[in-house]
């Protein structure tokens, strides 16, 4: 597996790509925060926020629909909010019988359900955009500048660096299990559920030991290259006047959307 197998970065030379990663991280968070406090049913503000996402997509040269196409990931969770449709307060809209219970969808419930979905859908789009226009190591570096403790950013950097190595390891384990597990069509293969769980558990244990021993080798390799407890970067990450301007402008826009939503 290649080292960037998990990367969601799309290389372009756009205005958004050139921004300091701190700017992108902060604006993303402010946008999601603003979404969270928009009142239910603030349709105009939701539409403007979507406009914000579309314009950011366009400025990133990814195509208008880029984040839209990838925003389906948040959908399954909508199931959990479905009960809010049957809120007890509000005017009934539709009523139907399911099994023995009578379900009534109310206007308040529907308004709240749709608002939750829109908020979630807008938020996930900016998060998708953030990693599409920022290299992950740069993002980690931005977190460090934003005062996330060094121990966490270092663990995250290692996680990112070795994830594909250990994923390869998992694939080797799974391939080994598959080659051991011959099956004849029409017959059930493998043992009981307990037996299968035992195999999976041993695989996890095996993976743990391989990772543990690998971390020893990694540490020794790092020591021999002069590691003394800190990771250094050659990328200076300087905030330029353009970065400050874009931050101020984006936050002002989000503020205006928020005000419109509250009118």
């Amino acid at each position, binding site marked *: 597996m290649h080292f960037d*197998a*998990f990367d969601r970065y799309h290389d372009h030379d756009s205005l958004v790509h050139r921004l300091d990663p701190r700017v992108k991280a902060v604006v993303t*968070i402010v946008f*999601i*925060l603003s979404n*969270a406090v928009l009142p239910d049913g603030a349709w105009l503000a939701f539409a403007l926020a979507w406009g914000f996402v579309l314009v950011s997509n366009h400025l990133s040269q990814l195509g208008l629909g880029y984040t839209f196409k990838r925003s389906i*990931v*948040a959908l*399954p*969770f909508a199931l*959990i*909010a479905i009960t*809010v449709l*049957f*809120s007890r307060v509000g005017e009934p809209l539709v009523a139907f019988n399911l099994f023995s219970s009578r379900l009534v969808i109310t206007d308040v419930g529907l308004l*709240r359900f749709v608002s*939750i979905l829109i*908020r*979630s859908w807008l*938020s*996930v789009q900016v*998060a*998708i955009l953030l*990693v599409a226009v920022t290299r992950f190591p740069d*993002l980690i570096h931005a977190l460090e500048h934003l005062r996330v*403790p060094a*121990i*966490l950013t*270092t*663990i995250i950097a*290692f*996680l*990112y*660096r*070795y*994830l594909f*190595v250990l994923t390869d*390891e*998992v694939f080797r*384990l799974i391939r080994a299990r598959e080659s051991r597990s011959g099956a004849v069509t029409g017959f059930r293969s493998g043992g009981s*559920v307990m037996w*299968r*769980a*035992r*195999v*999976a*558990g*041993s695989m*996890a*244990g095996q*993976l*743990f030991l391989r*990772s*543990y021993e690998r*971390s020893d080798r*990694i*540490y020794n390799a*790092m020591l021999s290259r002069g590691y*003394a*407890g800190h990771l250094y970067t050659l990328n200076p990450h300087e905030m330029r006047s353009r970065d400050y301007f874009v931050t101020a402008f984006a936050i002002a826009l989000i503020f205006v959307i928020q005000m419109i939503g509250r009118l």
Partner: protein
Amino acid sequence: MHYTPTPMHIPDGFLNLVVSIFSWLVTIAIVGLAISKTNKSLGERQIPLMGVMAAFIFAAQMINFPVAGGTSGHLLGGALAAIVLGPWAGMLVMTSVIAVQALLFQDGGLLVMGANILNMGLATAAVGYGLYRSVASSPKGVKLAVTGVAAWLSVMTGALLTTLQLWLSGTSQLTVVFPAMMGVHALIGLGEALITVFALGFILQTRPDLLGEGSESAKAGKGWVWAGGLIALFVVLLSPLASADPDGLERVATDAGFIHNGQSAPFSIIPDYTIPFLGETSFSTIAAGVVGVVIVGLVAVLIGRGIKARS
């Protein structure tokens, strides 16, 4: 690619601001404590170890085994991480895993990341490790049996916290979601328990030195037994009660002034999550959240002092 999201990662938009910020503050407090503890006890050698272990948990979540009807057993890893790495390091590892899942894969939101870390990283590690620690010197069979229960309860704790946060945010009705979430996770927890037990059994057989005397896992204090035990007890007592009578739980919470659509109790410190003189604006709600967190923080510090004094 090759990455299946688990049903417990809450996306942005599903929790309201107060619950999100409150969860973040609790998470920051616990993670901050974990950082200061690990900084004291770990050398520079442990940093690459924790990093690779975080990648291990992430990769181990891809290992599954078929159960029946297309479903499969998975590992979340909170309990396993805390048992093999020690509770504080385990918490940091889980925090990083959940942060990368949210940042890189959008599995779980950013504003609600505090809640996700709390549910799936910190609570699972505390319950998993606390129960394991209570039998750390027992024979292997007992140890593995308790590990299984601990892993199952760690998943149930995560599910319980997730359900409560969704309900307090007004996203779902407790009556339906509580039994549904707990029921589904009772099954998911079985997969977690089996994989954790067999993985730990494998490690105990091949490299017992990693978990023996002097390892990070054995060094952590007895306070964990109390912390993990209390959370587990809370889950065990609350779950059947609420599953049998979710309306009852809602009524109790309403009486205690927890939810705004009921009448507030005469004793509630922060009625309807707002500060009276600020009026019913979101700023007032945020202020109320902050006050609540300060109170919780004080309680946490006092408990921490107590535990420290005793050890």
